[in-house]
């Protein structure tokens, strides 16, 4: 084969790379538009506020919205303090060493574990061993464990990007370590930390494999932490897979997509503010 001239090779490479990139972007836009085009007509105030009737064949998705929100709130309430605390320890209270390496390794491994493993684990520990049953509590705890590594990593990055001079100033004015952390470091890192938390909210809204085996799939409106509840993602999965109602499946998918779009916009906005502040 004849070797291409550098300029021709350059042109071919550029064209190829751009083509693949644009296809990727096009695929994404297609997915979003496809779902929205078929889902938006189904959406109405009614759809959001009425409970499902007849396994979801008719009615709305209200109880699944409530279930999703409850699970997410519980998961974030548990994971955020643990994750931010871990990040504070790693960045402010230690200079590295074997303990830090173990903690980091643990967080990185946890980040790679598939959600179905979390589901299995949550099922055996919370649902059966601790006898919480299929419930918001079991699902929330399982999700919290899943979110932990994301929150640790994003908080750590946010805290690291706070200028070290702020800490020096704070100490030189007679602050203790904890005062420096709570009054100077955390307020400055807050937008970055919140971005991480919002991202993890997005993850828990879309999660299916971990929640279906821990929170169950009851369609009743949940009344307590021990109620079983179906999330929107699980509801969508069941509607689509069992062919119960395609219009309602599209409607639920559209809500999921809109929620994810909103969350991405929010993180984008927060992150931009954060970056502008420190560069």
């Amino acid at each position, binding site marked *: 084969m004849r070797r291409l001239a550098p300029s021709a090779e350059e042109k071919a490479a550029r064209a190829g790379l751009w083509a693949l990139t644009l296809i990727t972007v096009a695929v994404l836009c297609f997915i979003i538009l496809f779902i929205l085009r078929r889902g938006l007509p189904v959406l109405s105030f009614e759809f959001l506020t009425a409970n499902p009737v007849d396994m979801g064949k008719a009615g709305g998705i209200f109880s699944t919205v409530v279930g999703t929100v409850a699970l997410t709130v519980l998961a974030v309430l548990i994971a955020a303090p643990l994750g931010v605390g871990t990040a504070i320890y790693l960045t402010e209270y230690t200079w590295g060493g074997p303990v830090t390496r173990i903690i980091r390794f643990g967080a990185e491994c946890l980040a790679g574990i598939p959600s179905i493993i979390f589901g299995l684990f949550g099922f055996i520990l919370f649902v059966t061993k601790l006898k919480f049953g299929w419930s918001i509590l079991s699902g929330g705890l399982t999700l919290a464990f899943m979110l932990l590594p994301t929150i640790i990593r994003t908080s750590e990055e946010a805290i690291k990007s706070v200028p070290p*001079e702020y800490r*020096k100033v*704070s100490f030189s*004015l*007679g*602050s203790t370590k904890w005062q420096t952390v709570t*009054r100077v470091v955390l*307020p400055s890192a807050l937008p970055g930390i919140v971005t991480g938390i919002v991202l993890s909210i997005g993850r828990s809204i879309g999660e299916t494999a971990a929640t279906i085996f821990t929170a169950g799939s009851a369609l009743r409106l949940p009344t307590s932490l021990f109620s079983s509840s179906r999330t929107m993602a699980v509801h969508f999965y069941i509607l689509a897979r069992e062919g119960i109602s395609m219009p309602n499946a599209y409607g639920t998918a559209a809500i999921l997509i809109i929620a994810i779009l909103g969350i991405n916009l929010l993180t984008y906005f927060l992150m931009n503010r954060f970056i502008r502040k420190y560069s």
Partner: protein
Amino acid sequence: MSDIAIEIRGFSQYFGQVRKINGLDLDVRRHEILGIIGPARSGKSTFLCALNRLNDLVRGSRHEGAIVVEGRDIYAPDVDVVELRRRLGMVFATPVPLPRSIYENVAFGARRAGVRRRDELDAIVRDSLEKGGLWEEVLDRLESSGQKLSGGQQQRLCLARILAVKPEFILLDEPTSGLDPISTMKIEESLRRLKKDYTIILVTNNTKQAARVADRTAFFLNGGLVEVGPTAKIFTAPDDRRTDDYLRGRFG
């Protein structure tokens, strides 16, 4: 009581294997401005950060010898470091206002020390800004961000901020290195005024500044003290050849 406020005896500072200060002996007198001059990396800033133990924050920091402030060794095990840092206020080379309002920047140290009452804080903020020579310029915008001030104003804010903690000593680390001549002049004026209430140590890379404001001047080289004496003597008839060479611009 003698007029010596700080005694430094055989003090060396290490970071890991690197020795930044080497067997330093120096006295600081009460209510003087002690100027410290010397080429870059001669240990001037490290010396200041040894006085308020900010060096403790650096990984692998270690020292030998003693620093005695008003009769107490500051590296003794029962010393309260937080309290020590309040007594020795520090202004850094680049002004670093915290991302808060002007008011909150000045009130920061006082709040950490436990001052809660608003009228008390108001008085402290006003008094400190007046002493730092900034009150007139900011009195109508105390709630705007400290980071929106000009460089010179920011540095005076930093000066006011440490005065609010009611220190006995003011440590300045090349406080005017990034500033224009007018801002520099304003800071120097404030220092002359503050001398009667505080003991001031001024590290500067600008020998003329030391000549203008310091009562005594010390010349540092390679982490050690070459000589210290009345500013006039150091600048006109130094004992050591190296001091003379430095001041004439032969190195550094």
